[in-house]
């Protein structure tokens, strides 16, 4: 195996969509046995570049050289057959089928009679799962696995055959730290076998931990090709966002004695199987962080507070008045906003326009006798498009055509424009680039400064610690700890979220 041999070269790739130039003369190369990170802001064109590679999109200009030959893959399957595998962040699994079937879906091993070879199938899957250190059986139904485990199935599927290049598009967004570690081990193993890895992520610490080289994209252009060892976060971010990034997470926090009026109070909220006896409160102008591992039940708790889920028992008070649990419509009237975890499924009406989505919560107050006040709606739209810098060609653009980060901003805007008293943010920065992320963090603090009570759910420890005045840890459906910003350390939080000494620091 020759060192430094370029297995893939993408030259001068340009890709235009109607109204958008997603990629502009991008050069990208990958060598055998390297982990090549691809970074950039939301909408920079990372996913698009990979889709061009695998043949989902054909490039408007440019060529792809793979193993020394000019190629154009017909699609991901063709690419996979020729050794280039793309692993999406989005799960693409059949819930009703077993893990083994899902891994070999589309290529189930058959015996000599043409029937499916169930034994062989399960055996091969088992081997694969063992290699990935997964602790579940090939015969389990995928629908019953946790999201993180499903993600592992997705990864296993990419590795059923010998591959030359594996592309991971934001693989860790829903993985636990433990699983992330296993994933990295696997990546390293692949690298040692000479496989090239393309690794897309917004988490810079991961990039530095795993990658050999980094290609940076900004607004569809390539702004840098770096050796990881020779660069640092500062340089990287300035290449990504085109300016220097100040250490933005260093906010002024409120202390124990500065808290304002109580906005939300939750008392003994329980839901069988999801969370148990949850009590806490949030105050005016306070950012409360809720930290926990995937599956801790934070999202369900948030959904219950907002009212899209019902609880078995417990009470919720808003500004001292008890509110009916399980009525989201009422919650919006009362001024509770909720940015859910899953943008596409829970946050957006993908087929409708940016304008429609942005004003969806507000229009209940934007009408006379039921008729929407079109001009005011438009004004609000412009206001928030401006404030949050939402990149869209027009207000009529279908929201599904925006990049992930801009979609997230639309959802934020949807809630900000109702002037909420309480804003719940569930993983507000998942899949969002550092620049936008910093903006969102600043925004959160600004909202708090304006007197809004903010509940932030995040799996990213620095994020929670960075923005919150106070942090709750959650483990297995129970609250295991409460820390003020000044006393919170990563160590303490980890104890809380992993259940070590659970109960020892439990709050009432």
């Amino acid at each position: 195996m020759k060192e430094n041999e370029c297995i893939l070269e993408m030259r001068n790739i340009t890709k235009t969509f109607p109204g958008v130039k997603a990629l502009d003369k991008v050069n990208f190369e990958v060598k055998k046995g390297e982990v090549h990170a691809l970074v950039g802001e939301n909408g920079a064109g990372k996913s698009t570049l990979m889709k061009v590679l695998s043949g989902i999109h054909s490039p408007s200009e440019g060529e792809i050289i793979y193993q020394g030959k000019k190629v154009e893959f017909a699609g991901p399957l063709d690419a996979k057959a020729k050794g280039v595998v793309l692993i999406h962040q989005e799960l693409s699994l059949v819930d009703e089928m077993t893990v083994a079937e899902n891994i070999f879906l589309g290529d189930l091993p058959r015996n000599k009679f043409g029937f499916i070879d169930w034994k062989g199938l399960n055996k091969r899957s088992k081997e694969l799962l063992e290699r990935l250190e997964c602790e579940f059986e090939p015969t389990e139904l995928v629908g019953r696995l946790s999201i993180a485990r499903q993600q592992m199935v997705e990864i296993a599927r990419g590795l059923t055959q010998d591959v030359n290049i594996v592309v991971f598009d934001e693989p860790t967004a829903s993985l636990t730290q433990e699983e992330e570690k296993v994933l990295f081990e696997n990546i390293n193993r692949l690298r040692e076998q000479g496989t090239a890895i393309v690794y897309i992520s917004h988490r810079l610490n991961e990039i530095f931990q795993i990658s050999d080289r980094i290609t940076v994209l900004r607004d569809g252009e390539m702004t840098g090709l770096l050796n990881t060892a020779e660069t640092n976060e500062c340089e990287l971010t300035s290449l990504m966002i085109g300016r220097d990034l100040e250490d933005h997470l260093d906010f002024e926090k409120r202390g124990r004695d500065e808290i304002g009026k109580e906005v939300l109070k939750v008392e003994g909220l329980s839901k069988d199987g999801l969370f148990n006896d949850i009590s806490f409160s949030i105050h005016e102008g306070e950012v409360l962080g809720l930290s926990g591992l995937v599956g801790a039940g934070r999202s369900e708790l948030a959904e219950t507070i907002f009212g899209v889920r019902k609880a078995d028992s417990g009470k919720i008070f808003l500004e001292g008045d008890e509110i009916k649990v399980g009525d989201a419509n009422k919650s919006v009237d009362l001024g509770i906003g909720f940015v859910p975890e899953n943008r596409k499924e829970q946050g957006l009406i993908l087929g409708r326009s940016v304008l429609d989505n942005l004003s969806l919560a507000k229009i209940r107050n934007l009408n006379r006798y039921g008729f929407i006040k079109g001009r005011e709606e438009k004004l609000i739209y412009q206001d928030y498009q401006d404030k949050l810098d939402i990149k869209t060609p027009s207000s009529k653009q279908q929201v599904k055509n925006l990049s992930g980060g801009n979609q997230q901003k639309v959802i934020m805007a949807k809630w900000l424009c109702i002037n909420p008293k309480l804003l719940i943010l569930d993983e507000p920065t998942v899949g969002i680039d550092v620049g936008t992320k910093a903006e969102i963090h600043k925004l959160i603090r600004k909202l708090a400064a304006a007197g809004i009570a903010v509940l932030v759910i995040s799996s990213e420890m620095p994020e929670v610690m960075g923005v919150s005045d106070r942090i709750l840890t959650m483990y297995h459906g129970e609250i295991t700890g409460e820390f003020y910003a000044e006393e919170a350390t990563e160590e303490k939080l980890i104890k809380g979220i992993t259940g070590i000494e659970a109960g020892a620091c439990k709050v009432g």
Partner: protein
Amino acid sequence: MKSKTGIMKVKDNFDIWDFVQKNSIWLIFVICIVFFSIMTPNFLRVRNITNIFLQSSFIGIMSIGMTYLMIDGNFDLSMGSIMALSAVLVIGFMDYGIPVAVLLSLLAGSAIGALNGLFVTKAGINAFIVTLGSMLGVRGLVYIYTGERALVSSELAFSEISAASVGPIPLPVLIFLIMLILGELVLRYTSHGRGCYAIGGNYEAAVNAGIKVDKHIIINFILAGFTAALAGILMASRMNAATPTLGMEDHMIVITAVVLGGTKLDGGFGNLIRTLGGVLVIGMIRNGMNLLNVHSYVNMLIMGLILISVVYMDQKFDPLEE
């Protein structure tokens, strides 16, 4: 949104409700038998049971095609019309000999199925609209072809196909059961079968995994057309004639039977053994209500209510919790 079992929920001890849900169709089956045999003494006679099987076999044959289709997340409203078309064709072409006539009408049924499949897959039009179009269109063809009249077969041998029996089992029943078993094997042990589950379970995942989704769906539409044609031919043989109004409501009865059997309306789950249960229950109810002399309006009311309760069950039933 995916519903997932929570982490704290452990299911190890026997749960009656769980068991009931898992086996609902067979429980209904038993209840039906008990109810009708108490209500009418004739119900459990061997001849009546053969009768129920015979009557059910036509709906049953069609339900095989429909099960495949519904597992992959589609359905076919045109099956009743295809059945009528093949019935009139098989009689219309009787002069060329039975084998030719039978082959031809099987071909015609499959061709319409293929057409349905092509439009659902290649043009991306919803199965509801595509098969609604062909439901009416094919029925129109039948009227035009027959000049609105019934066609009668001159060939007595043809009517013996349906009348024949192997041992005590009438030929249509035998055909039904053999196809059912074969169909179930294919569902379980071939890539076509597993492909259907994958497509119905998660269409996008199936495409991403390189399953030739269109091919499988078209095959299933052809199968639906084929089974409808087969049922039509057997029906024509049974009546030694074919009327243009044949099978007007059959597509819905077939869908009801399949859903009653527990095949999920949105695909990804179900099998033919369950469908057999659904078919037999519908057959028993139709037969039993005849024996019970239920007023025809009430009969209609009961069928409507059954349909609604079937959907209620479908909604409550989550295969992942099995």
